[in-house]
């Protein structure tokens, strides 16, 4: 937690100093989550253009999609892979010219192949950060050998678990729990099994969290003993000295998400400036910064070598390869399945 | 006062939807005259005043002020100023600024405005209160400010809408005299709307009595008191006993009538319309009746009845006498200076009346 605060203070100090920077730098508009305006993420861009781009914030990828489809314009946006198919279908984004990316070869190969980073052979996204969604649990309340996704359905934990208020995350959890062959293209029977699992754990759900802080605080206070959440939450708890960790056993089920930057069709700035930013974001220095200061995994493979190894150990990114092999990726779900998931999830949450 | 007409109003009419507020309103006012429009509330007198001021358009007829037709001239361009019933003292301005409000539009110099404001305030005896705020003024002071604010504009006609109704009785009487004196000194025409007959009578040169949108009678106060033209006017000005009568003889000017209860009398009537056999309504003022336990001497008509009620008013006592042949008890007012008369309920008394006290109020069919 101290790290983040320091980083934020540094960043804001930098921002304040840069307020006189060239207007040219700020002409590049980025549609992003709040927090990613941190200048440590794109130092090369600041060095070259003398300032930061301008940021517009969204709260969720869905909200971003609605706004973009309504005609909202920006140069770059920051969605995650599972949303990309829809974005492409809605004709919102341009393919990425990988030859213009100076760091393309240094990016983790597994991540470059994720469905969503590339769709139908075209590259649409420059992956930036990735991380895990997994089961975070209180180590003092549940023994390591007793923990499993299936345990979420156990009557023992009534009112003691938390699940994300997002259909895709919930179904990823259910797919892992029920052993579905493919998360992105479940068969009817698999979908039914996954839905049944979500129904089963609904009885135990204390709340469906919509902000990560809600999960962190509930875990810290012992209000819930386990919850499906992001690795960011695990870190938060570690920083707050709460005995909790993420279940990182790939056999028991863990998911990986990848988010990155896409070149919007509504972009108005030159390709050169856009790719300057993309290169800055994917640079090794950026990766080192985000790993050390934010605890997120970065797409640049070199960054893992230059970053503080003890931190990487703590964060659980040490063995990237074996990790990727067994983990479920948040690929773009087929449109029909997505509609079914959304609909069914609403019913499940309402107790139907 | 001279004989020049300052206001000439001819056949003015005002309707609100289907309701006719003022109809067939014609009136000429002389320069320097103090004129009162008197009538009960809702009779249209305020509407008439507001039409002169320009706050209300009229639907028919003409209004001329100083010989100029006013139809297309808005209120802010008319040579009239108004004292409002609520006084309308601007609450955000002090006394001096209130009085100077209109002057500031005239393009006068600062010094000139200052002098005129000071003069106007002196005139209403408020000198030195210039910096008072509106909410620090008493009712009488507010009235004076309103007066000064209007008069400082040197209007040809000053319009006053119930200017004294918000004041208590003593203050009202003082202000009546003061305003009358001020008007006479300035020689400006005042048109005042009031529902108070005593106020109208003490202040005015002439009174116009209005009922239901119609100007019923316009005349000097003493004439309206002595010779009201009909029952409505009579009932609104002073007390009045109404009695039925019938013409028993023809002739010019004085005629014989048979007055209910009192019998045959000879009175002044309108010679053109009254003929033998006409049913008349006549009025007798309570103070013009004599009352006695014995039949009083030297009266033209007599009536015997029973005292049904006694009302003590301080300066006078009113007896209500029920007599055979009359519908309502007849009111008699007796001055209280010597306590010479003292009748009680149930006493049998005599009433006496002079011919000259009988007022012809017109044919009976036309009135209620």
């Amino acid at each position, binding site marked *: 937690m101290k790290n983040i605060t320091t980083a934020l203070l540094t960043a804001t100090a930098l921002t304040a100093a840069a307020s006189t920077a060239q207007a040219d730098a700020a002409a590049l508009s980025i549609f992003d989550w709040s927090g990613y305006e941190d200048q440590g993420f794109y130092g090369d861009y600041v060095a070259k253009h003398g300032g930061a781009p301008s940021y517009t914030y969204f709260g969720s990828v*869905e909200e971003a999609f609605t706004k973009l489809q309504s005609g909202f314009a920006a140069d770059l946006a920051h969605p995650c892979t599972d949303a990309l198919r829809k974005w492409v279908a*809605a004709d919102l984004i341009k393919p990425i010219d990988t030859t213009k990316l100076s760091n393309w070869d240094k990016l983790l190969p597994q991540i470059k192949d994720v469905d969503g980073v590339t769709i139908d052979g075209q590259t649409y996204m420059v992956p930036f950060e990735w991380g895990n969604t997994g089961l975070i649990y209180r180590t003092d309340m549940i023994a390591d050998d007793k923990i499993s996704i299936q345990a979420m359905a156990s009557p023992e934990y009534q009112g003691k678990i938390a699940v994300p208020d997002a259909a895709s995350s919930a179904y990823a959890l259910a797919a892992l729990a029920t052993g579905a062959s493919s998360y992105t293209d479940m068969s009817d029977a698999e979908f039914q099994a996954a839905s049944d699992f979500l129904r089963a754990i609904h009885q135990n759900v204390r*709340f*469906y969290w*919509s902000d990560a802080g809600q999960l962190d605080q509930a875990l810290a206070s012992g*209000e819930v003993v386990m919850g499906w959440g992001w690795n960011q939450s695990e870190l938060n708890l570690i920083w707050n000295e709460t005995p909790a960790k993420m279940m990182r056993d790939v056999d028991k089920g863990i998911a990986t998400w990848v988010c990155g930057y896409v070149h919007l069709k509504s972009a108005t700035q030159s390709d050169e400036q856009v790719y300057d930013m993309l290169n800055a974001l994917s640079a090794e220095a950026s990766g080192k910064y985000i790993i050390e200061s934010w605890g997120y995994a970065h797409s640049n493979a070199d960054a893992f070598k230059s970053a503080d190894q003890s931190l990487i150990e703590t964060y659980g990114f040490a063995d990237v390869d074996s990790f990727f092999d067994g983990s479920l990726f948040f690929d773009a779900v087929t449109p029909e399945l997505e*509609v079914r998931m959304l609909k069914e999830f609403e*019913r499940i949450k*309402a107790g139907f | 006062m001279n004989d020049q007409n300052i206001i000439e109003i001819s056949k003015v009419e005002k309707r609100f939807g289907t309701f006719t507020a003022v109809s067939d309103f014609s009136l000429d006012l002389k320069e320097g005259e103090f004129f009162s429009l008197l009538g009960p509330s809702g009779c249209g007198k305020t509407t008439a005043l507001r039409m002169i001021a320009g706050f209300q*358009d009229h639907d028919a007829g003409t209004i001329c002020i100083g010989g100029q037709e006013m139809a297309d001239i808005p209120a802010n361009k008319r040579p009239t100023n108004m004292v409002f019933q609520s006084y309308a003292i601007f609450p955000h301005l002090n006394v001096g600024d209130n009085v100077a409000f209109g002057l500031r539009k005239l393009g006068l110099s600062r010094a000139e405005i200052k002098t005129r404001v000071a003069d106007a305030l002196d005139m209403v005896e408020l000198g030195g209160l210039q910096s008072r705020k509106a909410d620090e003024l008493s009712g009488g002071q507010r009235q004076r400010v309103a007066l000064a604010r209007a008069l400082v504009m040197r209007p040809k006609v000053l319009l006053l809408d119930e200017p004294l109704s918000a004041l208590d009785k003593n203050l009202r009487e003082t202000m009546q005299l003061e305003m009358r004196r001020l008007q006479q000194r300035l020689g400006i025409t005042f048109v005042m709307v009031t529902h108070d007959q005593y106020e109208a009578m003490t202040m005015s040169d002439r009174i116009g009595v209005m009922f239901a949108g119609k100007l019923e009678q316009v005349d000097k106060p003493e004439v309206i008191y002595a010779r009201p033209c009909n029952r409505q006017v009579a009932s609104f000005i002073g007390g009045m006993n109404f009695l039925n009568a019938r013409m028993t003889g023809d002739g010019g000017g004085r005629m014989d009538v048979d007055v209910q209860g009192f019998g045959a009398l000879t009175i002044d009537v309108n010679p053109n319309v009254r003929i033998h056999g006409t049913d008349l309504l006549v009025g007798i003022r309570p103070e013009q009746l004599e009352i006695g336990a014995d039949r009083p001497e030297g009266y033209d008509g007599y009536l015997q009845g029973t005292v049904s009620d006694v009302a003590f008013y301080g300066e006078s006592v009113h007896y209500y006498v029920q007599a055979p042949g009359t519908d309502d008890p007849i009111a008699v007012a007796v001055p209280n200076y010597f306590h010479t008369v003292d009748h009680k309920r149930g006493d049998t008394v005599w009433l006496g009346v002079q011919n000259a006290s009988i007022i012809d109020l017109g044919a009976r069919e036309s009135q209620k």
Partner: protein
Amino acid sequence: MAGFLKTEAGKGLALSAPASLYVGLLVAGPLGILVAYSFWTQTYVDIDKTLTWANYIEAASDPLVRHLMLRSIAIAGAVTLATVALAYPIAYFIAFRTQKKTLWLLLITIPFWSSYLLRVFSWKLILGFNGVMNSALLTTGVIDEPLTFLLYNEFAVVLTLAHAWAPFAILPIYVSLQKVDRALLEAATDLGCSKLERFLRVTLPLTIPGIIAASLIIFIPTVGDYVTPSLVGGSQGKMIANLIQVQFGPANNWPLGATLSLVAMASVGFVAILFVVTTTALGRRIR
């Protein structure tokens, strides 16, 4: 035209037109579009503009919609009832039992000049597992285990909203109490009413317009609230507006969202009219 503008009606219309036109346009325009959308269909990222009843059929046949609608109305009803019932004595106190009316009115409005989101968040701090309430109860030894029924359920939604709408209930009721002629109360006492009878037979019926105004101001927006349920409602507190929000957001199914909005408005309108009619009738029956 110039002549018309000089008349009372003309001046009135001319002066009020900007405001009513503004509201009229912004009410009529969106409503029209909402209606149009409700007859269209979403096909992945595009809109199929073939007119169809499908959305309405779906909304009518889906038990989830009915369930959430009924729960929303029930929660909004509970919020309204709780807020008005809690607010009435305060309004009564301010109107009849204190001289410092302005001070009290100020006191009850000041808390609502903070951000609504932060206030809702505060409730989580109070009701949470390690929140103020549980901490206090644990420290004083009243309980051994933190209470879990305080947060993430309908109760928390009702409590939070009853707090949020408090001034909107107190003010209209206070105004209607303030208008009650004190002589009427004395007359009722004079005619032999006890204090309670006097309240039930005179004060209460006379303040029904205030109660109706307060109830509508609270009930209607509450049905449409989705922020509060998503923050403190937990797994059981979701309302119809959350479902609508999902259609306009993650599900990206605007036609269904529009249909649900219209169905919600119609239901709310129906319940509101029913409420006004029955309350007025009840008020008339008091003799």
